[in-house]
């Protein structure tokens, strides 16, 4: 589309300067404030700072990925931070004290879905509470298990799964933590 408004269109600040997706923690803080105004009894949830390093994973269908990771691996999306642009989305998922960012595969950042390149070069490591239950839930939801649940020599019970587009996930729980919750560990 090209018309008399073009010069003004070009001045849109996020066109002039690179578009910064913004800090998901900012949205969480603003939402927390709103909720404590709305509901006097609102128990403030501690808003985690965004870690200094966190991965951005590329998917062909990022919303399907959000649904999958929520349902199968029990991640939770920071829904208030979700950003939409030109029909694409950037989403942040909280996993314990960590965060992963999901977005569409993009030529700008040159990241791709494993589905397109046929392999992946990275594995996401996640510590969970009660790995046995986590594993059972994932299996029940049809997870593609690529390493069965097992006790590793370095003191961790773990399993691995590959998600809907081929990203690899490694889930683990330390033996000490298993014992602390009353579970059996070597």
């Amino acid at each position: 589309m090209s018309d008399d408004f073009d010069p003004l269109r070009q001045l849109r600040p996020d066109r002039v300067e690179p578009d910064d997706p913004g800090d998901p923690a900012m949205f969480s803080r603003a939402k927390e404030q709103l909720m404590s105004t709305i509901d006097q009894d609102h128990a403030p949830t501690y808003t985690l700072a965004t870690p200094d390093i966190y991965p951005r994973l590329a998917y062909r269908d990022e919303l399907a990925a959000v649904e999958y990771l929520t349902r199968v691996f029990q991640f939770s999306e920071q829904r208030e931070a979700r950003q939409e642009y030109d029909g694409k989305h950037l989403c942040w998922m909280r996993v314990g004290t960590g965060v992963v960012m999901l977005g569409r595969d993009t030529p700008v950042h040159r990241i791709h879905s494993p589905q397109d390149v046929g392999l992946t070069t990275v594995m996401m490591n996640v510590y969970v509470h009660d790995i046995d239950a986590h594993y059972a839930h994932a299996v029940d939801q049809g997870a593609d298990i690529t390493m069965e649940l097992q006790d590793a020599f370095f003191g961790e019970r773990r399993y691995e799964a590959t998600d809907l587009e081929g990203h690899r996930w490694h889930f683990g729980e330390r033996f000490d933590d298993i014992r602390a919750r009353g579970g059996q560990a070597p």
Partner: protein
Amino acid sequence: MEESSDAALIAASLEEPVRFGAIFDRHAAVLHRYLVRRLGPDEAETMVGEVFRIAFERRHTYDLLRPTARPWLYGIATNLLAKHRRSEARRIHAMARLVSQRLPSDDEAERVSRAVDAAARCRVAAELVSSLPEPERDALLLHVWEGLSYDEVAETLGIPVGTVRSRLHRARGRLRELVAGRGREQGDERRHPGRIES
């Protein structure tokens, strides 16, 4: 897992206020981006919370026949912007400056002249935006930057769609005139990049 409409959520929030949180989840990012575009990131962060607090307080007045709350929220944000005219003018001129600094290093004559031309047009657009009366500027930016349709702009500003049409028509005409007038002076423009601001 089909989600319910904004209208349904707002209706539910009359009985159960915490339901309003989902309205924030759905629209905060877009409203924040709008505020960043018009004022910059610092003001936007403070104001985005304000928009939703006001919306919450006024939810009784929401027209439940409107399934999406986005124009309503844009309207609240736009009202808040009125107090920040000065920072808005500063921001858009800064953008125009940035555009003109990006002249290509390539010395191929035609390319440079095209780029100078584009930069000059952007300066003119910045000048126009900051000189427009507020109602026209709001309509213009909601349409051109936010991509709202005429109907949505009308809903946002609470004015008839005919008024939106005439405001945008006027702005379009002035922009065209200014661009045509400025085309002749563009060499001048480039030697005095700070001039428009004074």
